[in-house]
């Protein structure tokens, strides 16, 4: 069952967004986090929504995959929306029942906040949906490269990420194996009160930890044997290629920002 796990939520497809350099996607997503806050009226939100919808349709990612990413925060969205609707007392009074008063300003504010959250999450999931985790790691390493001057271990961080990604399926396979071994000896992971079930996981986690440490030690030795000596003087097989479309995407984003500045109140 664990064999088919896909790491992260990458959706394989061939779209302009998939072909973009991970660096430009990272920059764009980061930038988007800020410009969402520029929108403060119907027109600017309309522009943002249009931009987001076009981007999503360009990505060829089916909506249900995006929805999966949205599901966990849906409750938060509804909650903040209701909070604003009930607590913001601006504009005309729309409805009154006992102590409950709903104002026009509150409703608008609620809708805006909900939209803002939805747009944010959709765009950031679009990044992980169209970029493999390893590409994101590579992109981050390149973008954060200048920080090496301040002795930030950027290369080590990226290597750690990629090794973790590489070992996720291996550890999942091992978990499955240990689980079966413990089940064969009468361990029960699926029934009983939560406390009992949590306890049942101890004999699963302990061997997993022990073997992970052993793996780490052996891997370090193997890396050393293959001449690993830190990031200095290292070349790279994975090459990131910045194309015209990446520059174009960032220009588009700059134009969006400009229009938001012009159209906001």
């Amino acid at each position: 069952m664990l064999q088919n796990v896909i790491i992260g939520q990458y959706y394989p497809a061939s779209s302009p967004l998939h072909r973009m350099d991970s660096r430009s996607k990272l920059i764009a997503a980061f930038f988007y986090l800020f410009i969402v806050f520029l929108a403060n009226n119907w027109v600017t939100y309309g522009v943002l929504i249009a931009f987001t919808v076009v981007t999503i349709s360009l990505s060829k990612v089916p909506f249900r995959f995006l929805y999966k990413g949205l599901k966990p925060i849906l409750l938060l969205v509804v909650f903040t929306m209701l909070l604003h609707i009930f607590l913001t007392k601006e504009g005309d009074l729309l409805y009154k029942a006992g102590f409950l008063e709903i104002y026009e300003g509150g409703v608008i504010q609620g809708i805006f906040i909900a939209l803002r959250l939805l747009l944010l999450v959709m765009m950031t999931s679009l990044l992980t949906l169209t970029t493999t985790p390893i590409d994101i790691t590579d992109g981050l390493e390149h973008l954060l490269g200048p920080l090496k001057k301040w002795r930030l271990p950027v290369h080590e961080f990226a290597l750690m990420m990629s090794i973790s990604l590489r070992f996720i399926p291996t550890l999942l396979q091992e978990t499955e194996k240990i689980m079966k071994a413990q089940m064969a000896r009468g361990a029960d992971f699926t029934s009983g009160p939560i406390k009992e079930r949590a306890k049942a996981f101890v004999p699963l986690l302990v061997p997993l930890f022990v073997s992970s440490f052993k793996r780490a030690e052996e891997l370090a030795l193997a890396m050393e044997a293959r001449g690993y000596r830190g990031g200095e003087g290292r070349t790279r097989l994975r090459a990131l290629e910045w194309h015209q479309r990446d520059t174009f995407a960032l220009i588009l984003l700059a134009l969006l920002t400009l229009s938001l500045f012009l159209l906001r109140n």
Partner: protein
Amino acid sequence: MENIITVKDVTFSYPGEETPTLKGVSLDVHKGEWLSIVGHNGSGKSTLAKMLNGLLLPSEGAVNVSQYTTGLPDDIWEVRRLVGMVFQNPDNQFVGTSVQDDIAFGLENFGVPRDEMVKRINESVARVGMEAFLNQEPHQLSGGQKQRVAIAGILAQKPSVIVLDEATSMLDPIGRIEVIDTVRELNKKEGITVISITHDLEEALSADRVVVMKMGEKAAEGVPEDIFQQRELLKSAGLDLPFSLKLSEALRHQGVELDKSYLTQEELVNALWKLA
């Protein structure tokens, strides 16, 4: 014959341990040969293997790889490039997220330019017969395939020596044959020196020379035919005799007229079917 590695009077103890793991071991490895180092657990054979590419440095004595010395900081990287090592657990030496990334790992460490890297990856992956798997991820590969990728990673570094540190002990019989055949071809056709560390005497049978390790010392050294005649020595080193040898001795004991004890199954079968 030209030596590629010379181990001279090497003594080594792990920190905090009183009895040394290696006691005054000397060893010459000839260029292009297949040398098997056999021994029981704790005989010091794996420690000796880690000496050969400077993963461990001798407390006394020296290890030289062609003109380089493992103890010199200036030489160590060249030593590691020349002496590639395949370890026991196929999973725990796979660094990259895919076959080509893993083969690239060593090349990246040695600062090989990207164009050259791509060329060498394609070439070395073909030499181990894994060219169809270039973009596969490690969890989609069998143990034997992973070990072959590890060998390809070493080949890409243009090594002189491949050290197999119990590299087949975690594989199923098919994977074991895959790996041994791959290495044998590299040894025979390309003249790459192979040092295989093993406790499996069957595997040592195909070696040009065998070194027996016992309690941190070199107990014997010679061609397999000679070594395997020294039954008492092998027994005291905690090693199990190869099956064909045991069978031929048992047959002789039963009065079957065999000229000698045969090392390989083929030799034994050839001798047996000729019997009246």
